[in-house]
């Protein structure tokens, strides 16, 4: 049992580092050559600004139990898709790096502290995160194009996969130190968020 958990951690560590080490990309720049759906599917995994809060939320929901994980599994992609659709209606791209970072820090703090939140609160967080990032993503996509909507669907599918895997793994944790390791991951997300905030607020020169 213990070694099974260790293998799972190593798997996720490998996957996380692979994804984190990938070059940063934005929705309008990502081009896999496999069409808009694949572009959207890949976008989440090569954009740490989007991926970090998703990881924090999925792990937090998973730590609370399978019911929480299942709720986030459906709430987050649906809210993200709704946000993307709303973002497509906006005239110009929206960029809110400071707010984006504060959201990441807040979710990291919730994961690190392992606070027992009610399910409704976790679902609300998922909806707010989905709408917020969805609007930011959608506003960057080309307007009035079918491929933009297909790309947004790809992001939704990637979210579904990411949340199901992360929340599922977190929900299956039975060993205390593995739970602690997940909380440490939350503190790392907070630390990354604080540094990102420093970058965002940095005045050049």
């Amino acid at each position, binding site marked *: 049992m*213990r*070694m099974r958990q*260790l*293998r799972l951690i*190593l*798997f996720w*560590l*490998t996957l996380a*580092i*692979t994804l*984190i*080490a990938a*070059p*940063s990309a934005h929705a309008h720049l990502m081009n896999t050559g496999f069409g808009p759906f694949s572009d959207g599917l890949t976008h989440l995994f090569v954009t*740490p*600004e989007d991926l970090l809060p998703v990881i924090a939320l999925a792990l937090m929901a998973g730590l609370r139990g399978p019911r929480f994980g299942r709720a986030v599994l459906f709430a987050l992609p649906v809210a993200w898709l709704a946000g993307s659709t709303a973002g497509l209606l906006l005239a110009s791209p929206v960029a809110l790096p400071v707010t984006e970072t504060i959201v990441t820090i807040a979710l990291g703090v919730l994961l*690190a502290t392992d606070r027992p939140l009610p399910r409704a609160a976790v679902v609300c967080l998922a909806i707010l995160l989905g709408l917020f990032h969805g609007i930011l993503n959608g506003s960057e996509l080309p307007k009035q194009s079918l491929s933009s909507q297909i790309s947004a669907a790809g992001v939704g599918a990637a979210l579904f996969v990411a949340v199901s895997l992360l929340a599922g793994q977190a929900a299956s944790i039975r060993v205390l130190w593995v739970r*602690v390791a997940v*909380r*440490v991951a939350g*503190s*790392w997300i*907070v*630390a*990354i*968020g*604080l*540094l*990102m*905030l*420093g*970058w965002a*607020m*940095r*005045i*050049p020169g």
Partner: protein
Amino acid sequence: MKCFQTRAMKNFIRHAGAVRRSFVVVFFLLYPLTVFAHKRGGEAIGFASGFLHPISGLDHILAMVAVGMWGAQLGAPAMWVLPVVFPMVMALGGMMGLIGIKLPGIELCIALSALALGFAVCREARPKLWVAAIIVGVFAIAHGHAHGTELPLGASGVLYSIGFVIATGLLHALGITIGLIHRWPAGRIALRVAGAVVAMGGVFFLWKAISGEAA
């Protein structure tokens, strides 16, 4: 305890192949990025440069490994509270450095950190958890601030920050792993000796910092 150790060691040996394979995979996935580790035109260019930053200075390495060793020596919950506190508070210090908030005596505090943490490990100091967290937190601010002011300008520091935090966390994990020898009587002595070595390193850095400030 002995039974647990034996079983854990047997399990580790049985699954050592999987562990090795995972490390090999991680290495090869990260390897191509190392060619871009140099700073290009003063920009923060990504994960590799951020990852290498905390491990580029011996004073930082000693302090971060010592935090892990001290945590392991103190046992739960300090073993994980200190490494959780350090990256967060260090990042707070880094943020202050990035946005230009000045703090006095940073170099002295960094040199003192290796000395104090090494001394704590050497003496097997057992303060209350909140006292240990404050000590670690103060030093973390100093280390983070120094890193923050050194960080190059860049369009996006996200990957750089991720690399930076992961490297710091891995240094703590290394310290905790070393500190686990505390379970055995000989290991306990070896750990205290390691603490003394860290403290001596701290004396060297303190002397350098004082002579540097005097000059």
